[in-house]
């Protein structure tokens, strides 16, 4: 017997964070049957729906299943009550960003649009303070736009590294909290036959083995491709995912140019391989993203309504991209009066993307990855192929 103490606040929070229809569920289990991602045993998302209705916060936040969901929304489309289980799971995921955030008071700022002004204020204040540091803000001259002449590159890089370090520390702490919590989940450990002639029963392949397994799946988007109703998302997400990776590589390339080859101002010509990579990444990211936004707006009934957290992430990403392009354009056009202020705006937005990553939608990358590994480790999730191997 488990003592149940419903947490009404939690129910209401989930409803506000994108699970507005969760109370409509009447437990028919259509969703669990239809979900292409759910394992047959102890399937989701029906059980998550009643936990959510009953405000069973602990259970839900430790439930790795919420991350096995890829929000295909097959369930929401077929739910006879319009309870939108796909969106409810998304809301729960949003809640985990908060729950495991470090420090938690910052995570809190992402739970409601009411705190949005603070989220904007932080980078502006920091930037202002940063610019007060002597030698950071330079006075550019001439009609050519050279961003390095406006703000000291080195300073930016140092600041960027500091932010990066913060992000890494914070993310690792959150990682750890989550991994521990999921480890405490009461979910059963599944025994899976894997190995010689179906004889060996083994549960875990060890951390790194499963890490590798999970990584393979993530890189291939294997699970994503199983969604039925919203198959476009597989491709779109693949675009966003590899877009990021390419952009990451091109950034590394740029850094290498600067430090290994001593290039002063990064104004690479369009044919430069690093530039090409960056542009392809940009197109993939931008394209995939737009596709998702378009579908969600035009067919929110089937594709699922985005939550505030989704919007925050998406909008920021867009703005970073747009300001980036405009910066490039104004540089080429030599519009100094536009370029430099734009640069400031861009820095604020980039900060928001990076520094907020562990708290925002971006965080799903790590939580999902962990949940994924957990599921693999416990045998909850075994690729069909793998099981038959």
């Amino acid at each position, binding site marked *: *017997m*488990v003592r*149940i103490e*419903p947490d*009404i606040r939690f129910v*209401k929070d989930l409803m506000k964070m994108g699970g507005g229809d969760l*109370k*409509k569920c009447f437990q028919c289990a259509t969703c669990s049957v239809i979900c292409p991602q759910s394992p047959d045993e102890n399937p989701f998302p029906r059980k998550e729906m*009643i936990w959510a209705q009953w405000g069973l916060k602990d259970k839900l936040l430790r439930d790795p299943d919420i991350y096995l969901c890829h929000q295909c929304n097959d369930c929401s489309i077929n739910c006879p*009550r319009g309870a939108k289980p796909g969106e409810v799971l998304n809301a729960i995921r949003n809640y985990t960003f908060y729950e495991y955030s470090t420090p938690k008071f910052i995570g809190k700022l992402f739970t409601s649009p009411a705190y949005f002004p603070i989220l904007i204020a932080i980078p502006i204040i920091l930037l202002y303070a940063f610019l007060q540091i002597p030698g950071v803000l330079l006075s550019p001259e001439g009609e050519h736009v050279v961003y390095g002449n406006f703000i000291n590159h080195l300073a930016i890089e140092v600041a960027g590294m500091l932010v990066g370090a913060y992000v890494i520390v914070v993310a690792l702490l959150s990682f750890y909290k989550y991994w521990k919590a999921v480890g405490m989940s009461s979910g059963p450990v599944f025994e899976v036959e894997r190995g010689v002639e179906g004889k060996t029963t083994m549960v875990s392949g060890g951390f790194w083995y499963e890490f590798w397994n999970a990584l393979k799946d993530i890189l291939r988007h294997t699970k994503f491709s199983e969604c039925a109703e919203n198959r476009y998302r597989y491709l779109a997400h693949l675009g966003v995912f590899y877009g990021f990776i390419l952009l990451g590589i091109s950034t590394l390339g740029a850094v290498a140019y600067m430090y290994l080859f001593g290039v002063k101002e990064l104004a690479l010509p369009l044919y430069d391989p690093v530039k090409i990579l960056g542009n392809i990444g940009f197109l993939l990211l931008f394209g995939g993203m737009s596709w998702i936004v378009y579908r969600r707006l035009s067919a929110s009934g089937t594709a699922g309504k985005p939550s505030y957290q989704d919007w925050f992430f998406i909008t920021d990403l867009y703005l970073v991209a747009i300001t980036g392009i405009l910066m490039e354009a104004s540089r080429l056009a030599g519009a100094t009066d536009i370029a430099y202020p734009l640069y400031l705006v861009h820095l604020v937005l980039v900060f928001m993307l990076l520094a907020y990553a562990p708290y925002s939608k971006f965080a799903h990358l790590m939580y999902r990855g962990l949940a994924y590994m957990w599921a693999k480790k416990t045998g909850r999730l075994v690729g069909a192929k793998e099981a038959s191997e």
Partner: protein
Amino acid sequence: MAEESVEKNYMLYICTGCDIGDSLDIEKLKEVADEDFSVESKTHEFLCSAEGVELIKKDIEEGVNTIIIAACSPRVNYDTFNFPDIIVERVNLREHVVWSHKPNDEKTQQLAEDYIRMGIVKAQKMELPEPYKEEITKSVLIIGGGITGLTAALEAANTGYDVVLVEKEAELGGWVKKFAKLTPSTPPFRDPREPDVDEKIKQVMENDRIKVFTSARVESISGQPGLFDVVISQNGTKEEVKIGSIVVAAGWEPYDATKLENLGYGKYPDVITNVQMEEMAADGKIVVPSTGKEAKKVAFIQCAGQRDPEHLPYCSSICCMVSLKQALYVREMNDGQAFIFYKDMRTPGEYEDFYKRVQEDPGIFLTKGEIKSISKTENGMLVEVTDTLLGEDIEVEVDLVVLATGMVPRLKKIAERLAKEEEAEGEEAKEGEEKAEATETETEGEAVSEALEEIEGILNLTYRKGPELPELKYGFADSNFICFPYETQRTAIYAAGPIRQPMGVAESEDDATGAALKAVQALELISKGAATFPRVGDLSYPEFFLQRCTQCKRCTEECPFGALDEDEKGTPKPNPNRCRRCGVCMGACPERIVSFKNYNVDMIGSMVKTIYVPEDEEEGLRFLAFVCENDAYPAFDMAALNRMEWHPDVRIIPVRCLGSFNVVWIADALSRGIDGAILIGCKYGDDYQCHFIKGSELANRRMENVQETLERLALEPERVKVVQLPISEFDRIPEIINEFVEEIEENIGPNPYKGF
């Protein structure tokens, strides 16, 4: 039988439309009428047309008073071929001959000829019924002043009839008066509504046509519909009123929760029933009984006894809605939390919207589950639930537990008392031999019966067949609920509301309206001497030739409607207004002294005798099908309409009810060389479909006598068979008939009495 007052002037009309003329030799049919019966005949190619009807009317003007119409089924065009004060017999050539048999075939022709003969004989043996008419009182008695009774009273009064309303409590309004709110009954079905019973009470009190007796009960009801003598006692005084028809709206009581000890009732003060919860809510405060503090967390246990063979085996249909409503009380009045544990949530039809609305509330938690235990803790009550949808066994600590108990019809305990009394009577008879036995259990039994003895009756009829409405199951008034919801086994007495089926307020109001109109309709029919449901408008009624009665009491026993009382000697005393004209008494009577002007033993016997039975078996065997008019006969029509074919050697004889089947017809038939008879009637048993409740069952029971007859004639038992046929299974007809025929043809052989 009865003396022929007017000389009969016959005419046979044969319609040649609807494939009849093309499939049969009409001239030969006319010859049969002429040669065998000297009955003149006319044909028309479209008899149901204005012109055809005109043809008949002209003949009637010229003195024809007995007509045989050989055309379509009597179940169609009955209004077209409706000639008042004329004997009309319909021969079903269309459905039962040409649509269901090979056209222009020797056997089909023989079939048609037999039906013509049978029709003419039937007309010969038939008299115009003279209705039983007496000056009646057109007033309606309503028993019960709850929402159902009040509604019925208003409905009957508003159609212009006098109403007498009897309520046992000092105040009108029944349960609804005690409720805080009612579950929604109109779109959008979102919010509980205010009980509007005060308005109804006011209307009733102000209505000049309605006479109200409160703190009163019905002492006795004697007589018959239209002429009931009802004694009402009120505060020790008795008043006798004349009543025409009755609506019983005596309602329900909550299931005795003390029997639910497993759920903690009686053991813990903080376990209450939904009725107690409602009363608290009506008083404006939901508190924990043991502490008097506001109840913040409340658990509702659904199906508290319902759907459990140990307690109430049925779904009470409203308690899910009630708990949903009461969960809202907890939310709105106490800002608390409500837990609902159910077996299944049953919110039929649009009530689902209310379920949805309650679900939306973040402070209401629902799950399916089995209650494992309810116990007391330091801070409240602990409810342990297994098999939940949460995927594990859970326990919840609450302040208050509400058991959603079910409805028990008020008839239930009365029925138990009556059964006990009957048993006791039976035992008295046997007493002496077994007296030494079981002294211990006896005292126990007595204690039970003492409690039961105090249960007062509702109707207290002085009928021979008992004082109350017969129950079907679980104490609900029997009402052949499939098709005829308010009907009961007592003519002109209708049941409405939870006395006949568990139901909520809105349904009870609908029910009351229906039953009130039924009661009013009964008055009108009875005043014309006509039967009520199901032979609505039938003017015939059974007549008893009592000089030959042997007081065997079979008719009084078997009459499903308690129409026959008895004198001290056991001679039946008919009450025609209580009678539904089923003919069961006619089937029961071994002396064959019961007859209707237009339906009697001799008539059917003569029809059987007029059938041509070929001596040479090569010409084919002959079979009879006695077919119930209510469902089986139309089933044959439907089969024919679907152009299904059945064996042409079978002659269909419609009967009012299989219960009116008299065994003598079998003797008549078999001694003439007919090879077998099949009786087709409605389904019987708990979910019977018989329009006269027990008719088909009785016929089946009488098969014993039939077997005796067969034995006496040294014939095989397989020659007679009873079949139950729900009307929806008309497609089985060819199979049923053909198998029966083939079985006899192949395995039994022809009747040795042929040609005697």
